[in-house]
């Protein structure tokens, strides 16, 4: 793959990485149309403009951080938390590599996968539909709200879905609304977590949790290599930070933020503003990697996204999990019955058990716990519906025949309202998490896709980008090992224990 003077539609591979480029030249990447060479915008001062990591954090900080990991720590002790550290580090690397492709090309990772082989993209297209049309995430939050207010969860969840749909329909630029709303919610969640942790926790518990992060010598604790617990331990590693396809959608948010070459792609608008939509290019674009000035700007973008990843993503994810784990340890010590409930419980039983345990530690904490569960459910739903519609619209527009006669806003709305109407029907008349007959398949797919995107990402960045901006061997190794790790542990769980539901 490389850069040549071949005009549009050539698509033939040129040996080596990117070399001299001028206006009219293109960068050949994979089997699709080449990318034109354009100017890379100047990167912002590193910390002045927050990136879309906040959306990824808003989606990623959820069930795993507030429930799965506190539960595992109560059961196995804080020494198990080294696995969380490993999981979040891998996800941080994945995030930076997703950003590498999106900022260098302005294309989504779905487009990148199609450049390698279109069936890869169609696999992600189908997996997203199978896994993300079920409104389970909002039902969990609505159940928390019902515990607090008595409002039936079906009503609050259905109303929330309609509100989300209307919000994303009337707004001019969807990304701006998403960033504002989720930025506020996650800011309140982080400050609230710090204050609650400060009121209830203790230095001893915090010290144990922090030390546990580095207890690599502890390995897999006794009792964790069983059919009952191994799938949950593996699932908790997979759910450390963003799970499922969330990292792939991050590339779409980066583009709408205008990060790197994303500035050359129009932003997704609400349906009511579809007529204002600019013409969408047929492909992304590439900058001149042989121009030192362009490479200086590229390094600025890498620095910007690294701050975004390390401080916002890594820092916030670690912080919320640490605080919730401290709370759980405190609760389990105060109320040993909570530990037994967690050992035996399903999620529906365990959540109230944890809340009861928190209430033993301090009277207000059961309320706090359900408030956070409700908040997490709502913010996750806001992000997930946008993400699903955004990803499917991107793939539909570029790769479904006949879709280019529609505007992106129209395709986005079609997917958004499709999943909302389906969600309302399912919430009121069907299983919110999906039909029981295929639950195992859905659970398998949601973890399998993480391994798959790690491997695809390694391929895309090492094949479709010019040599000068490809990831180094160590980064590629992390991606490949991460992909093999996710898929390997999932398959081991299925083969050795017959369990594919890791949540």
């Amino acid at each position, binding site marked *: 793959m490389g850069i040549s003077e071949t*005009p*549009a*539609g050539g698509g033939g591979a040129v040996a080596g990485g990117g070399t001299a480029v001028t*206006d*009219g*030249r*293109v960068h050949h990447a994979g089997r699709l*149309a*080449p990318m*034109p*060479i*354009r*100017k890379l*915008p*100047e*990167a*912002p*001062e*590193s*910390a*002045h403009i*927050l990136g879309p990591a906040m959306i990824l954090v808003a989606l990623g900080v959820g069930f795993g951080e507030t429930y799965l990991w506190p539960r595992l720590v109560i059961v196995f002790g804080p020494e198990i938390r080294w696995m969380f550290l490993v999981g979040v580090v891998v996800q941080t690397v994945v995030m930076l590599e997703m950003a590498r492709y999106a900022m260098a090309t302005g294309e989504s990772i779905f487009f990148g996968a199609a450049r390698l082989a279109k069936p890869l993209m169609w696999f992600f297209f189908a997996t997203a539909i199978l896994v993300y049309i079920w409104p389970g995430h909002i039902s969990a939050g609505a159940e928390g709200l019902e515990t607090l207010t008595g409002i039936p969860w079906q009503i609050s969840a259905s109303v929330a879905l309609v509100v989300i749909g209307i919000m994303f329909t009337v707004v001019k630029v969807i990304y701006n609304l998403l*960033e*504002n709303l989720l*930025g*506020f919610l996650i*800011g*309140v*969640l*982080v*400050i*609230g*977590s*710090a*204050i609650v*942790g*400060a*009121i209830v*926790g*203790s*230095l*001893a518990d*915090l010290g144990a949790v922090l030390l546990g992060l580095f207890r690599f010598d502890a390995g897999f604790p006794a009792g964790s290599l069983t059919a009952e617990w191994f799938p949950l331990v593996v699932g908790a590693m997979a759910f450390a930070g963003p799970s499922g396809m969330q990292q792939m959608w991050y590339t779409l948010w980066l583009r709408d933020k205008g990060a790197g070459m994303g*500035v050359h792609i129009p932003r997704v608008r609400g349906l009511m503003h579809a007529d204002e939509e*600019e*013409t969408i290019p*047929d*492909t992304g*674009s590439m900058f001149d990697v042989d121009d030192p000035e362009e490479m200086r700007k590229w390094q600025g973008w890498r620095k910007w996204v690294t701050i975004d990843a390390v*401080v*916002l993503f890594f*820092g916030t994810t670690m*912080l919320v999990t640490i605080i919730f784990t401290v709370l759980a340890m405190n609760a389990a010590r105060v109320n040993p019955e909570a530990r037994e409930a967690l050992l035996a419980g399903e999620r529906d039983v365990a959540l109230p058990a944890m809340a009861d345990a928190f209430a033993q530690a*301090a*009277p*207000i904490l*059961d*309320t*706090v716990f359900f*408030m956070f569960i409700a908040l997490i459910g709502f913010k996750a739903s806001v992000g997930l519906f946008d993400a699903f519609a955004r990803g499917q619209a991107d793939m539909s527009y570029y790769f479904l025949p006949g879709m280019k006669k529609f505007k992106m806003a129209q395709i986005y709305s079609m997917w958004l309202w499709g999943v909302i109407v389906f969600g309302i029907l399912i919430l009121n008349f069907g299983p919110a998490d999906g039909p029981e007959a295929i639950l195992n398949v859905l659970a398998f797919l949601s973890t399998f896709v993480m391994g798959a995107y790690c491997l695809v990402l390694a391929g895309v960045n090492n094949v479709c980008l010019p040599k000068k901006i490809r990831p180094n061997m160590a980064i590629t190794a992390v991606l490949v090992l991460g992909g093999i790790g996710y898929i390997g542990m999932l398959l081991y769980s299925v083969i050795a224990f017959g369990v594919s539901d890791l949540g």
Partner: protein
Amino acid sequence: MKIPVDQKTSAIWASLSWRQVVELMVPGVAIGLIGGVIAGVLGATGGLDLPLTLAAAVSLALPLAAAGAVYELLLTMGRIPLGPLGPMALFWAVGFPVARAVNAASVNLFAGDPVAVPHGWLDFMVYNMLLSVGFAIGFWWLHQNYAPRWWYRIRGRNPLANYFITSQLQFIGWQAEQREAQRKGRRDRRAGKKSGPGSASSLGERGETSNS
């Protein structure tokens, strides 16, 4: 350690009236108050009696708001740089434990015994200092998102707000210029197509519209 001073910010600050300085403190105070509101809401919904709820909320809100005001003051004086998390985390490593100490002492006073400091003051202060990183991230997050909106509102009457917003808007302005240039290019091409054939291939067109 001597903290370097941002000379430009410092020079503008020296020309401000007290009213202008005070209005620059609004974001920090507001975010500090959010902490107190959270404590109050938690106490109220958790079944604490009204006096204790108010004591918990006010005794946390006021010191956090005061600390937020001090942070803004240092920012406007150029003593703390705009943007990076590190200096903000250092600031809250002091501000947060102090605010929590005021809060705990007040709750102890109302509750009649040391319920808020069950493990002793040393343990309490160290623990809160460690957790201050969390509060700092939340503060930073909200500040980075919402302070610029406030600066934008007052930029006409406050030169330092205008300076802050200008430095942040450079990137956003660049993006807007890029998009407008692209829109203009496409409009021109459409006009060219209407007036006659002979346009280049689509990729060629994009090449021509690149930002040179």
